[in-house]
């Protein structure tokens, strides 16, 4: 894959992770019927009121062309409707893709290289004008313009002619691989089979933008709403964003967004400790407040756990993510599968899970794919280490590998206290491997230096802590960037850390991409993960879990496994 794509994909992955890690999802109260009277989460939701969103990161570049979202984003999805979107349901059901502006998930033809969508009837913008397929085409085209960069690279990679297209502003040319035979139909021509196109169509780039209303880089100040809310105030590039009802949005055309509050006030730039403190105090307007990017850290969770009323206001979210040990088999001694297996056996997942915040914030992982069905999760444990590791087995393997007296290796980690690739996790592994006769030296790097070093084949260490999340909940974007030999990037960001280039694996990836039956594809991803997992190219450590607080008058809390965060299109404050 081309380098720029991968850079942005990585950035995106990081962004998604930030969003989720920054704020754990708070949910669960939706199904906790026994919540006491103080917590309104179980009450019947009503329209009206103002919902306050307390966030750490601002909603920067609020232009559908520029946003890099998973499933259309949380706040953006209130304003921007897309061809498809994520199912707004709790848990696993929320990892499904469903139609939004389109009547269905699209009709594939020619081996999933052509996708046709038909728009629903009665779709309108905030000014009352009708939404047409030409607007969707134009919205996608403008996302190719250099001045509106920021979105995911998939459209550029997948659409015929996308690689060389420079957007509609230069010479006014359109992209021929998107056809609009009539105002309700849009057809996409792809360079290769992509059975997961419906997932891509959830991103805000498929939001309609009428050419007549396009103001280029200024469009983000007042984008034309197609969703239930319109932007009435945007201060400090998304630091303060006030949304009010869009009178022309019709619930009849939108099965996903509930839009209970009349007004949504997004305040960003807050410290995560402040957000959690304000949500736990739940005073004044904070009673009707939620966060979409801040989670409870271990210490905060410990404090909340001791308070029944508070813990009733904590929701749990899962976002497909895996933290793992990555090996670079080009570096000795990790070229020897026995050494990699020995380390796989020596790992003590119980102390790693504790270092990551305990069993409430991390689930032990033995698969590379996240433990969710939509990714094709197929349970396997190629090197069963038990709860606390199997140092005896590890020693045996090391002996076979020619290290009867143990060996010394260096583990590279991030110095940032992120409970994912941080020193606590590294020292937990150091202790566990000590029991197997492996002396681990730690090399901690500052956040940026860490990413630059480990995700570049020129500087990639042999043994480091990594993490990976995908742009949508399926095996494709999760598995392929890490194990597809054609996605090894020679210069720039590379995520195929093992530099695996196995023709059989590559071929299977191509085969799965042709499948339009997403559950059949998921199964094949799971099987492929298991097969690759036996090579011990990574040691899966844990899947993070996110805990999120919300105010005491917040009702109808929904947290999907797609985002792992509280969906504000569902929240009611009355």
């Amino acid at each position, binding site marked *: 894959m081309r380098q720029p794509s991968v850079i942005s994909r990585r950035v995106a992955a990081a962004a998604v992770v930030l969003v989720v890690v920054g704020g754990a999802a708070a949910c669960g109260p939706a199904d906790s019927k026994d919540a006491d009277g103080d917590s309104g989460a179980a009450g019947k939701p009503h329209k009206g009121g103002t919902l306050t969103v307390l966030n750490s990161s601002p909603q920067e570049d609020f232009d559908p062309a520029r946003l890099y979202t998973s499933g259309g984003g949380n706040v953006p999805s209130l304003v921007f409707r897309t061809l498809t979107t994520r199912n707004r349901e709790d848990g696993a059901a929320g990892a499904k893709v469903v139609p939004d502006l389109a009547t269905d998930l699209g009709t594939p033809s020619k081996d999933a290289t052509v996708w046709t969508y038909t728009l629903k009837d009665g779709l309108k913008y905030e000014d009352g004008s009708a939404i047409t397929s030409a607007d969707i085409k134009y919205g996608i085209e403008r996302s190719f313009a250099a001045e509106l960069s920021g979105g995911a690279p998939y459209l550029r990679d997948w659409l015929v002619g996308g690689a060389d297209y420079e957007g509609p502003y230069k010479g006014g040319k359109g992209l021929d691989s998107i056809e609009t035979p009539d105002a309700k139909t849009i057809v996409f021509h792809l360079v290769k089979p992509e059975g997961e196109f419906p997932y891509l169509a959830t991103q805000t780039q498929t939001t309609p933008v009428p050419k007549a209303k396009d103001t280029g880089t200024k469009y983000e100040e007042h984008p034309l709403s197609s969703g239930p809310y319109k932007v009435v105030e945007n201060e400090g590039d998304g630091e303060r964003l006030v949304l009010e009802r869009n009178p022309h949005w019709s619930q009849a055309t939108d099965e996903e967004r509930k839009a209970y509050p009349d007004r949504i006030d997004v305040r960003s730039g807050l410290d995560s400790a402040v957000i959690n403190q304000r949500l736990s105090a739940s005073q004044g307007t904070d009673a009707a407040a939620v966060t979409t990017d801040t989670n409870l850290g271990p210490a*905060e969770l410990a404090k909340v*756990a001791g308070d029944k009323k508070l813990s009733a206001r904590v929701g749990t979210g899962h976002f497909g993510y895996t933290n793992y040990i990555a090996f670079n088999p080009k570096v000795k001694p990790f070229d020897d599968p026995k050494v990699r297996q020995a380390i796989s056996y020596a790992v003590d997942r119980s102390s790693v899970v504790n270092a990551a915040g305990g069993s409430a914030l991390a689930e032990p992982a033995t698969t590379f794919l996240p433990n969710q069905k939509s990714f094709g999760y197929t349970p396997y444990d190629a090197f069963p280490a038990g709860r606390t590791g199997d140092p005896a087995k590890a020693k045996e393997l090391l002996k076979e590998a020619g290290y009867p007296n143990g060996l010394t290796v260096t583990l590279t980690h991030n*110095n940032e206290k992120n409970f994912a690739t941080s020193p606590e996790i590294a020292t937990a592994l150091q202790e566990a491997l000590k029991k197997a006769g492996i002396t681990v030296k*730690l090399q901690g790097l500052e956040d940026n230096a860490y990413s630059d070093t480990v995700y570049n084949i020129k500087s990639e260490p042999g043994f480091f802590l990594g993490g990976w999340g995908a742009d949508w909940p399926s095996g494709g974007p999760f598995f392929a960037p890490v194990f597809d030999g054609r996605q090894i990037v020679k210069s720039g960001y590379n995520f195929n850390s093992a530099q695996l280039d196995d023709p059989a694996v590559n071929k299977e990836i191509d085969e799965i991409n042709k499948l339009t039956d997403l559950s059949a594809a998921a199964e094949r991803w799971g099987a492929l993960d298991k097969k690759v997992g036996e090579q011990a190219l990574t040691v899966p450590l844990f899947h993070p879990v996110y805990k999120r607080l919300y105010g005491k008058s917040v009702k109808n809390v929904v947290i999907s496994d797609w985002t792992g965060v509280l969906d504000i299109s569902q929240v009611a404050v009355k």
Partner: protein
Amino acid sequence: MAEALLVKEAGSVTVPASGARPFWRRLRRRRSALVAAVVVALLVLVALAAPLLSGIEGQNPTAYHPDLVDSATGGVPLGSFGGISGDHWLGVEPLTGRDLFARVAYGARVSLGVALGATLLQVVIGVGIGLSAGLGNRFVDQALSRLTDVVVALPVMVIALGALAVVPAGFPRPVLIALIVGLVGWSGISKIVRAQTLALKSLDHVAAARLSGWGPWQIARRELLPALAAPVITYAVLLFPSNIVVEAALSFLGVGIKPPTPSWGQMLSDADTWYQAAPTYLLVPALLLFVTVLALTVLGEGVRTALDPRAESRLRIGTRSKKEAGA
């Protein structure tokens, strides 16, 4: 503050009552200094005997104990007061279950060791530069004094943050921190030594020595250094706790000591979010740091007054203290 006080005072010539015995006698008479000395001695003992003490406790500072924390609620230590028990004298660390006593004892080695190294370096450089400036010709004095002025203006923390980020990870961190703090923090001593040297130089016995053909080195060694000992020791004893604080601050900011080696500052940094959920975790290193710095400062004051009894009497003028100072 201590620095300002001392620098001001440095203008006057202090010729201490010579001999170690009166010094000890005066120091012993100050009860606060005695208590402080005992505390410091205990801490040094704990630091030196860290392996022995944690061996008696049956723990080591890096072993994880996943079963001693409540994994389901964020990893709070099980049991009351942060899991204090016969096996874990000060309880365990949240998340990891590492033994706090062992970490604190080993952390003392780092905190005290780094501060000691840094202070010694500061003294050596400061005395060297100060003496050279005081004894050298006008050109040397000007050059060294301006250099000292520049170093005074150097922000220790900023330089340390930069240097720690640049130096390769393989370099032992405690040594590096001691080096940085030592190399940046000698200006106070050098100023005092220069001022004292200039004042001492004009005294008869030094002038006599010079007239009888002694070289600067000989004069420094025979005549000046003994007289400089009092202010230098005093200043060094006060620098020591501030160096502890610098190391703690650097480790607190995450650029100091590397895990798994414990240091008090790093423990404080890890503990700062836990003050509500596991207060013991924060209190143990915080109190230790507080007690250590306090004890050293009190001891420093004691040493200062014991070395220079007139300082105390000067301080008491107007207070009508019943107990007349000075021996």
